[in-house]
C-alpha cells in the first residue's frame, strides 16, 4: 500500500537506490534520501510511536525535528529521531517507550485512566503510606523514561575543529542565501550553515501549488556556488551561542567551533499547532509537515483530508495538497476571513469548500486509534473562545493538515542576550535590541513575504559588513509582515480534553488551567509544574501556546508573561561530539623510560607522571613499598624528583625579594647555604614550603613541591610587578631534572662520580659535575639525613642517571617512588603542606613559629599573623604513634579525633613504619591535647576508637 507520489523536481529521494529495513519486526523498503518517518509513511505505516505519558499512538507532527513523536532504537543507539534520521540498509528499528511493541503497547491502558493522572500527580500521590513510596517510585521511574541505554555502545570520538570566519549565516533558506550572497560579494570569509540535508529552507516545500519557489532555490544555490569564499555546511545545526560569537556547528561528523566576527540569524520559524481534541491522532499533522512529505520525499500525507487553519498559511498548504492529487474535503478557517483574498479565491475556483469562523471541535479516530476516521467541525465564537455546537457537522476524512502560526527560531538570539518584543501586528516575538555584531533577518525577524525576506537578508548582510568596517551604505529598513502570520489564540476548549499543547509531555489545555488554579501561574512555575517545554523538543512546538493560555488565564497581554530561558543545545548533541578526540596533556620527566625499564608503576601528580613504586615479582604493593623504605634506611635509594618546582631569583635585590615573599630570613644567607622557605597567603594561611639555595651572591635557586610550582611562579611574577625590585625571575622547572640519592651509602656511591662530597654539610649547596655534565649539588634532609639531590640540565639527565645507577649497583642502590617517599618523610617527621595542612591552617598551628621572622619590615601574610597571634590557638598538629605491636584496624587519613563524644581534630597522615616498628602519623588535636605523652582517641571507619600517643616528631631518633 504505497503512498509514494510521482517524481518531483528537487525531491530528496534517489529512486534508483532502494533501502531495506525493518520496523517493529516487519520488513519495509524505502529510498536512499528518505528519512525513517517518510519511508514508513510511504509504506502506509502511520503508528510510528507511543506518547510519553499516556502511550497514545502517534504519527508525523512536524517532520522537522520540532517534536519527538517518532523516536526509535536500533538496539544499540536510542532516541533516534525518525523525522530527520536517514533510513539506511539493514536498520532494525523499534519505537521507544512501548511495552510489547508499538501496536500492542501494554501501557496503552494508561490513556483511559488519564483522569487519575493530572499534571503533577506524582507530587501529590504515593508518598503516604511512606513505606510504599519506593514501590510506586520504581514503577513511575520505569514509566518515565523513553529510550533504554545500551551500555555496550562503543566509544566514538569525533574530532572537534576550530574555524574562523567574518560572517556566519545560520539558515540557508531564501533569507540566509540572500544574506550569504550579499556578504560573499565582499570577498570576506562567509560560512552559511543549515541543519537540513539540503539547502533552500521553505523554498523546497512551501509552493502553494506553483513552481516559482523551487526554481528560485536552484538559482540562489547556483549563484552561491560561484563564490569560493562562501562555504555551505549542510546537515549542521548551530548548537548554541557562546560569548564573543562562538557558535558550534554540529553534524554527524562532529563539532566545528566557529568563531565569527559577525552573525546573521536567518533561522526561520517553527510552525505551531492549533489545539483541539485528538489533535495528536496519526494523520493529523502540521501544514508544513504535509508539504515536506509531498515535496521532499514525494509521499502522500493522506488521501482525503481537511485543512484546519488559523492563518493564511493553510490556504497555501491546501493548494499544495490539491496539486499532489489529495482530496481536500474542506478548509476550516478559525477566523472570519483570510487576510488576503487571492489564495481563498484560488481554492474556491478548484471547488474546495471553505468554512469560515469555525473550528475542528474534535477528531474521531478509527477503531484502534491508528488513524483519522472523521472530524467534527463547529462554528467558533472568538469572543467567548467557545465552539458553538448547535450546527456542528462531521466530515469523513483520513487526515488533517493544521496551521496556527509561527514562533521565531530565536534560541541563539536569546542566548546572546537579544531583547525581544511581542509585535501585535505579526503576532510573534521579534528582536528589538540585538547584541553588537549580531543580526536577524527573515521570519525570525517577523518578515514573511518572499521578496521581503530576501531583501531582509541583504539588509542584515550589509549591516554585518558595516560592523566589520567595510565601506557599505546604510541599508534601507524592511518592514515586518503587514498582516498577522500567527493566530493570537488558536485553542479550542473541550470538556473531554485530550487537546494537546505539548506533544512530548502529553500536556493538555486543562493542565494549564489547573496549574494556574493551584497558584503556579508564573511562566517559570507553570513550566516546571506542568513540564511544558521540558521534553526533548524543549518547547519548539509548545511554548508559545502555553504562554498564550497563561496570558488568557491571568488576563494580561502576552509579553507580560515573558519566556523561559533558552539554553544550549538547540538539538540533542552526542556526548562523544562534546568529548572530541580528548586531549589529556601530561608531563614526563626525562627519566620516564629509565623508570619504566626498572618496573615503575606510574601515578599522576598534577600533570606529571611519577613513579609510585617499582614492581618486584612476588611482592604486593605494600611489601614493595616497605622494601623501598628499608633500602633507603639501610643502604641507599634513588628517586626521580624532576617534577619539583624550580625557580631562579637573580639580581641585586634577590634576597630582599625572598624576604618579602617568604616568612624567613635570607638577607644574611651565605653563598652555598640552603634555608627553609615557607609561603603564606595574605590571610596568613600556609600555601607551600620548600628550600632556597644561595648559589651566588645574586642567585637564589628555589625548589618547591610539584603541584604548586606554576602557581608560585605566577604569584612571584605578580608581586614583582607590584614591588618592581631589581631582580629577574626564571622558571626553570622544565629545564632541570632532579635525582635524589638517599641513605647511609649515598655518599659512597656518588664519591666515585663527583668531587666535593665530603665537604658538603647538611643544608648546603654547590656546583659540581659528573663526567663533564654540570650538576647543582644539594644536601637536603627530606627523606633521610643522608640525601644528595642532583639538579641536572634536562637533556643530560638520563646520561647521569645511568652512571649513578651503575655506580650504585654493587652497593644495593634501589629506586624508590612517591609511595615510599611519603612514608620516608613521615618517619623523618616532616609535615607536608597540602597533606598535613588545609585551606585554613596558619603556621602557628603546625609549630612553624621558627620559620617566621616577624621582625622583618613586611612579608606576605605578616599583618594577618600579627592578628592571629593575639588569639588563642584553636588546634595544633601533633606527631603521634599507636601502641607498639598494635595489630588492629589502622585508621585512615581524615579519620576523626574524638574527645568526650565530640570532634576534636582529625588524622592527616598515617602509616605503619617498619623502621620504627609502630604506626605513626600526624593529627590535629585541640591545644589541650598537644603535650607529649598525651593519649587521644581516633575513630576508625568501622567506628572503633583507637588510642594514639603524642610523641616527638623525630620518630627515627626515638628508636
Amino acid at each position: 500500500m504505497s503512498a509514494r507520489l510521482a517524481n518531483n523536481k528537487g525531491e530528496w529521494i534517489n529512486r534508483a537506490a532502494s533501502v531495506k529495513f525493518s520496523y517493529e519486526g516487519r520488513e519495509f523498503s524505502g529510498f536512499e534520501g528518505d528519512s525513517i518517518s517518510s519511508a514508513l509513511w510511504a509504506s502506509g505505516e502511520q503508528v510510528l510511536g507511543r506518547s510519553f505519558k499516556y502511550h497514545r499512538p502517534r504519527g508525523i507532527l512536524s517532520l522537522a525535528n520540532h517534536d519527538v513523536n517518532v523516536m526509535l532504537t536500533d538496539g544499540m543507539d536510542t532516541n533516534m529521531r525518525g523525522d530527520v534520521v536517514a533510513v539506511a540498509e539493514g536498520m532494525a528499528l523499534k519505537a521507544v517507550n512501548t511495552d510489547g511493541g508499538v501496536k500492542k503497547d501494554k501501557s496503552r491502558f494508561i490513556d483511559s485512566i488519564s483522569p487519575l493522572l493530572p499534571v503533577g500527580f506524582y507530587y501529590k500521590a504515593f508518598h503516604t503510606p511512606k513505606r510504599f513510596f519506593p514501590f510506586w517510585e520504581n514503577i513511575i521511574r520505569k514509566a518515565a523514561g523513553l529510550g533504554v541505554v545500551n551500555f555496550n555502545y562503543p566509544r566514538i570520538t569525533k574530532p572537534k575543529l576550530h574555524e574562523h570566519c567574518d560572517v556566519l549565516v545560520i539558515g540557508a533558506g531564501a533569507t540566509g542565501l540572500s544574506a550569504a550572497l550579499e556578504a560573499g560579494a565582499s570577498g570576506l570569509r562567509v560560512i552559511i550553515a543549515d541543519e537540513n540535508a539540503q539547502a533552500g529552507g521553505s523554498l523546497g516545500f512551501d509552493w502553494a501549488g506553483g513552481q516559482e519557489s523551487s526554481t528560485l532555490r536552484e538559482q540562489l544555490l547556483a549563484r552561491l556556488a560561484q563564490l569560493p569564499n562562501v562555504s555551505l555546511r549542510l546537515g549542521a545545526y548551530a548548537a548554541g551561542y557562546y560569548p564573543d560569537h562562538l557558535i558550534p556547528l554540529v553534524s554527524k561528523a562532529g563539532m566545528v567551533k566557529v568563531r565569527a566576527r559577525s552573525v546573521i540569524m536567518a533561522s526561520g520559524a517553527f510552525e505551531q499547532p492549533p489545539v483541539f481534541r485528538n489533535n495528536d491522532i496519526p494523520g493529523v499533522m502540521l501544514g508544513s509537515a504535509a508539504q515536506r512529505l509531498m515535496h521532499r520525499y514525494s509521499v502522500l500525507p493522506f488521501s482525503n483530508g481537511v485543512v484546519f487553519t488559523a492563518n493564511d498559511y493553510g490556504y497555501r498548504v491546501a493548494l499544495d495538497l490539491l496539486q499532489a492529487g489529495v482530496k481536500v474535503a474542506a478548509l476550516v478557517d478559525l477566523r472570519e476571513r483570510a487576510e488576503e483574498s487571492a489564495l481563498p479565491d484560488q481554492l474556491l475556483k478548484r471547488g474546495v469548500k471553505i468554512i469560515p469562523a469555525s473550528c475542528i471541535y474534535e477528531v474521531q479516530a478509527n477503531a484502534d486509534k491508528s488513524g483519522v476516521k472523521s472530524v467534527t467541525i463547529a462554528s467558533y465564537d472568538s469572543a467567548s473562545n467557545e465552539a458553538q455546537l448547535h450546527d456542528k457537522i462531521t466530515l469523513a476524512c483520513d487526515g488533517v493538515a493544521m496551521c496556527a502560526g509561527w514562533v521565531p527560531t530565536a534560541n541563539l538570539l536569546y542566548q546572546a542576550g537579544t531583547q525581544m518584543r511581542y509585535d501585535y501586528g505579526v503576532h510573534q516575538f521579534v528582536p528589538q535590541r540585538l547584541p553588537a555584531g549580531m543580526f536577524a533577518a527573515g521570519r525570525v525577524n517577523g518578515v514573511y513575504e518572499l521578496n521581503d525576506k530576501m531583501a531582509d537578508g541583504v539588509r542584515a548582510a550589509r549591516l554585518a559588513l558595516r560592523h566589520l568596517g567595510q565601506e557599505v551604505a546604510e541599508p534601507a529598513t524592511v518592514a515586518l509582515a503587514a498582516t498577522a502570520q500567527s493566530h493570537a489564540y488558536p485553542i479550542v476548549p473541550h470538556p473531554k480534553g485530550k487537546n494537546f499543547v505539548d506533544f512530548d509531555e502529553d500536556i493538555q489545555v486543562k493542565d494549564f488551567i489547573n496549574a494556574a488554579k493551584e497558584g503556579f501561574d508564573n511562566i517559570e512555575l507553570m513550566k516546571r509544574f506542568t513540564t511544558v517545554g521540558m521534553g526533548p523538543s524543549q518547547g519548539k512546538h509548545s511554548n508559545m501556546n502555553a504562554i498564550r493560555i497563561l496570558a488568557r488565564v491571568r488576563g494580561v497581554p502576552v509579553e507580560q508573561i515573558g519566556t523561559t530561558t533558552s539554553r544550549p543545545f538547540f538539538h540533542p548533541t552526542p556526548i562523544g561530539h562534546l568529548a572530541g578526540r580528548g586531549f589529556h596533556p601530561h608531563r614526563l620527566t626525562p627519566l620516564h623510560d629509565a623508570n619504566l625499564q626498572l618496573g615503575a608503576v606510574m601515578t599522576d601528580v598534577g600533570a606529571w607522571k611519577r613513579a609510585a613504586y617499582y614492581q618486584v615479582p612476588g611482592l604486593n604493593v605494600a611489601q614493595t613499598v616497605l622494601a623501598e623504605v628499608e633500602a633507603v634506611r639501610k643502604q641507599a635509594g634513588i628517586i626521580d624528583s624532576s617534577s619539583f618546582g624550580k625557580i631562579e631569583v637573580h639580581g641585586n635585590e634577590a634576597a630582599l625579594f625572598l624576604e618579602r615573599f617568604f616568612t624567613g630570613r635570607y638577607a644574611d644567607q651565605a653563598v652555598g647555604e640552603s634555608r627553609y622557605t615557607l609561603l603564606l597567603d595574605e590571610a596568613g594561611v600556609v600555601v607551600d614550603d620548600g628550600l632556597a639555595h644561595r648559589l651566588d651572591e645574586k642567585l637564589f635557586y628555589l625548589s618547591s613541591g610539584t603541584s604548586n610550582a606554576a602557581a608560585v611562579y605566577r604569584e612571584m611574577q605578580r608581586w614583582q610587578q607590584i614591588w618592581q625590585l631589581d631582580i629577574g625571575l626564571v622558571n626553570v622547572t622544565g629545564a632541570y631534572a632532579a635525582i635524589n640519592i638517599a641513605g647511609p651509602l649515598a655518599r659512597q656511591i656518588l664519591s666515585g662520580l663527583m668531587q666535593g662530597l665530603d665537604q658538603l654539610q647538611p643544608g648546603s649547596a654547590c656546583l659540581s659535575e659528573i663526567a663533564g655534565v654540570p650538576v647543582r649539588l644539594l644536601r637536603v634532609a627530606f627523606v633521610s639525613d643522608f640525601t644528595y639531590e642532583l639538579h641536572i640540565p634536562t637533556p643530560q639527565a638520563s646520561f647521569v642517571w645511568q652512571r649513578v645507577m651503575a655506580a650504585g649497583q654493587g652497593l644495593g642502590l634501589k629506586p624508590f617512588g612517591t609511595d615510599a617517599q611519603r612514608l620516608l618523610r613521615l618517619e623523618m617527621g616532616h609535615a607536608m603542606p597540602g597533606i598535613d595542612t588545609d585551606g585554613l591552617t596558619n603556621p602557628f598551628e603546625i609549630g612553624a613559629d621558627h620559620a617566621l621572622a616577624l621582625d622583618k619590615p613586611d612579608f606576605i601574610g605578616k599583618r594577618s599573623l600579627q592578628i592571629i597571634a593575639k588569639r588563642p590557638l584553636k588546634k595544633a598538629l601533633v606527631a603521634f604513634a599507636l601502641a607498639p605491636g598494635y595489630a588492629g584496624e589502622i585508621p585512615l587519613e581524615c579519620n576523626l579525633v574524638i574527645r568526650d563524644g565530640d570532634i576534636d581534630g582529625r588524622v592527616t597522615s598515617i602509616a605503619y613504619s617498619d623502621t620504627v616498628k609502630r604506626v605513626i602519623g600526624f593529627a590535629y588535636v585541640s591545644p589541650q591535647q598537644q603535650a607529649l605523652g598525651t593519649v587521644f582517641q581516633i575513630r576508625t571507619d568501622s567506628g572503633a576508637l583507637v588510642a594514639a600517643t603524642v610523641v616527638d616528631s623525630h620518630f627515627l631518633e626515638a628508636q
Partner: protein
Amino acid sequence: MKLNSEMQTEKLMTPIAHALHGQDLLWDDINGMRQATRFATDEIELARKAVLGLADASALRKFGVKGANAAQWLQQQGLVIPEAANRWVVSAAGCLILRLGNTEFLIEDAAGTATESVCERLSLAFSAQPGLYLVPHVEAAFVLSGTAVAQLFSEVCSIDLTRVALGGKDVVMTQFAGVSVVLMHQDLEEESLFRLWCDSSYGPYMWDVIAGIAHEHSGGPVGIGRYFSAYK
C-alpha cells in the same frame, strides 16, 4: 644504529625519546644529542612531508636571555634583533632570533653550525648584570610542513592561524592541545615550514598528538634531515 639498552654515550637525549620508545627507528647523534633520524623509507618520508610532515628539531642549540637590558646586550654582542615584541628575525648565517614579548629573547642556532655556534659564543660572553638574566632553553622543538597543516591547527588550536592571521615575521605564544607553545612560520630552503617549541616535559605528549593527527591525513614523522639539508 644504536640500541636503547646500551648505556647512553651521548650526553644529551632528545625530549621526544619516550614517544619513540619501542619503535624500529634509526638513531643518531646530532650536536651531541641522541635523536631518531629516520622513520620510514625516502619515498614515504617525502610523501609525508608534502601532506603533514613532523620532525624533531630539539638538537638545535638554543640560548636565552631576559630583562630590561637584554635587547641592548644582544646588540652589543653583534646581533640584529627584532624591534617589536613577538617578532623574529634570522641572521645571515641562518640563526633564529625570537623576541618573546617585550624583554625576552630565544636564539636558536642554524642547522649545521656547531663549529660557529652563535649560542656557544653568547653563552661564553654572558656575565650577570642588572636587567640581564640567563634563561636556559631545553624545549622540545618541532618542524611541521604540508598541505594539511591548517587542518592540524584547527584541531589543536582555537586561534586563527591561517596565513593571513599569522603574518610573515610574527611569533605567537598560544596553546596546542592544552599545552603552551611558541609558534612561527618560516620559509626555509624553499619550503613553507612551521616551527614549534614547548616545554620538554610535554614533548612526548605533543609529538604523539601531532603524529596521531598526521597519520590520519596520511602524513607522519620524518627525519630532521628532510628539512635541514645539513643533517641529511
